[in-house]
């Protein structure tokens, strides 16, 4: 399948600081892509190059299989990191204006705006002026503005920041539904838990460089299943087993990290001989752990 977004070895510097260095990534239709990284890693710079707000110093940006051109932007929905709306405009006027700007007719834009407002539970706010709404509500309005023209490619810069958990889940579910309908979604975040649940592929960037990229399963499989969670009754002498690199022990519950290439079965045998084991689970590292492991102390944040 042809990639909707194809960044080919792009680089971008501002003044004396390199924001993005030799970054390549591809986003396929019908997938959800997570752009990860600590604050200041270059996520926003990368996104801005994707939609032509800034141009790369080196490398190529292709959208929908063609080199970037402004014509492609009608098929893209973009939510910038810092939310911007006309404060004094009525919500519905604002949505219709932005919809029209992306090629919808006024009537169609009005119809869709109302539909979306129902769906995101803000229908009673659309006749208010934007400045009268809470920040979270304004964010939902902008979310709608991004999606009104049913873009094939949805690019959102930190879409869930500043939302309460209920609304964050509402927007997450909406994105998942869009993905199911075949739209490609890219979002950036520094929150690993969101990516782990939502994304099919990720790219982790740090100091402008991709340090980890690929399908979610593939990335995680690259890391050993070297985490063990044990629940037990009895002595905890098995925690001194040579296969264990480090552990956290709570009453009858231990989280263990094994040494590289250690055999978990040996540990299980030792544990069974020392205590009554009620649970012994070998788990993949969470993305958060991978993130910390990869970026380590090198993060700028």
């Amino acid at each position, binding site marked *: 399948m042809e990639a909707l977004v194809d960044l080919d070895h792009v680089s971008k510097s501002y003044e004396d600081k390199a924001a993005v260095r030799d970054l390549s990534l591809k986003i396929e239709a019908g997938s959800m892509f997570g752009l990860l990284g600590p604050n200041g890693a270059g996520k926003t710079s990368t996104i801005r190059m994707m*939609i032509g707000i*800034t141009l790369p110093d080196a490398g190529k940006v292709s959208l929908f299989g063609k080199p970037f051109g402004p014509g492609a932007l009608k098929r893209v929905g973009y939510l910038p990191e810092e939310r911007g709306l006309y404060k004094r405009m009525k919500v519905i006027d604002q949505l219709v204006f932005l919809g029209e*700007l992306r090629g919808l007719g006024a009537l169609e834009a009005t119809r869709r705006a109302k539909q979306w407002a129902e769906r995101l539970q803000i229908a009673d706010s659309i006749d208010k002026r934007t400045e009268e709404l809470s920040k979270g509500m304004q964010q939902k309005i902008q979310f709608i503005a991004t999606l009104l023209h049913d873009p094939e490619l949805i690019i959102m810069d930190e879409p869930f920041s500043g939302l309460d958990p209920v609304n964050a889940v509402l927007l997450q579910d909406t994105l998942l539904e869009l993905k199911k309908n075949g739209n490609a979604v890219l979002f950036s975040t520094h929150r690993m838990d969101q990516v782990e649940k939502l994304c099919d592929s990720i790219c982790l960037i740090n100091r402008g460089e991709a340090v980890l990229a690929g399908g979610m399963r593939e990335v995680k499989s690259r890391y050993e299943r070297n985490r063990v969670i044990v629940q037990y009754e009895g002595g905890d002498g098995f925690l001194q087993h040579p296969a264990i690199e480090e552990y956290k022990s709570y009453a009858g519950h231990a989280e263990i990290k094994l040494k590289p290439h250690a055999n978990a079965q040996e540990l299980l045998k030792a544990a069974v001989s020392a205590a009554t084991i009620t649970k012994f689970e070998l788990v993949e590292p969470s993305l958060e752990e991978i993130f910390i492991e990869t970026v380590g102390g090198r993060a700028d944040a």
Partner: protein
Amino acid sequence: MLNGMLRNTLLIAKREYLERVKSKVFRITTLLVPVGMGALAVLGQFSGRKMEGVQDLAVVSSNRGLAEAVKAALADGSFPPQTVEVVAPATDADVARLNAEVAAHRIGGYLTLEPVPGEAEPKSTWVSGSAINLVGKAQMESAVRAALIREQLAARGVSDAQMHALMKDTTLNTMQVKNGAVVSSDSERSFLGAYGLIIVLYASVLIYGINIARSVVEEKTSRIFEVLLSTASSDSLMLGKLLGVGAVGLTQMGIWGALLVFYAGSAMAATQGIHGLGSLGITRAELAFFAVFFLGGFFLYSGLAAALGSSVSGEQEVQQFSFILISPLVVSVVLLPYVLANPNSTTAVVLSLLPPFAPIIMYMRICAQMPPAWQVALSVVLLFGSVWAMVWLAARIYRVGVLMYGKRATLPEMIRWLRYS
């Protein structure tokens, strides 16, 4: 592609237009300016009445004949006083009494005439409670000069009646060759249109120029420009903004223009000797040029405001550059008397071609005496060419400047931005 750009530009223009026309500022200024103009007109009439000669005065001289001649000359002058007391010859007590009357504002002042031996002209001194105005000064000077002539005429046996006929003030009828025809001119009214343009342009640039700069800054600080730029080009954004705001300006002008036409045709105006626009000294051609130069000037200064707005980071800084914005207009106004006096001098011609000054200076020249067609055409072409250049410039600065927020751009940085996008 071009269609898309046109569509976006019009959409943006429509939004800018509706947002402003619905705003309070629009309603207030639409109402306030005609009220202010009315107040100015009343004030003008009032201060016009003030520009009169001295009403009550005394003439003091050791030469009674001279004093009487001055009194007669004053009565025949352009500004005949109500009372003229002749004190000749005057004692110290008389002078003390006159000083007291001046101090009590019973008389405007007194004129002393001391004959100088061997000279025809006496030493004349005006004593009053306040500085004399120009009319009063001219009134006294011409009276003394006329009195000297009167004395000479009297010595040659000219009768009082003949003297009155000879010495009374004449009235100059002024005619003007305007666009090929000799018409009667009223030197004050023929520039009414030009002064109107200055006031209107000045007010619009101050109101809408600052308004445009504000809206650019608002888009920057609210970051909505990032959404806009992800769908529309910065050229569409800037052009749409200017067209929208320009349409607002025209709407307002239209309302004011309709009010003026309505006023000029009204019975109230007829009582003031005004019958229709023609008698205000405004011809149709002038009205058309008014529209052209108003629009050109308006767009040029609005474009400049947009460019300045794109280069600053906060609302407060908008205030600081409002002076930069209107300074060419101020310069035009300062140079106006010179241009009026020498409408075809090289300086006036050059100024009327330079876009920042063209709207006022060229329009004033057109009102004074129609300049050669090529000059008018060149001026209009340069004006609208620079509007286009200004929009282009503003769009570039907006495009790049807004992405580097937080600090204000220096001039070299701005030049670098221009090359970059």
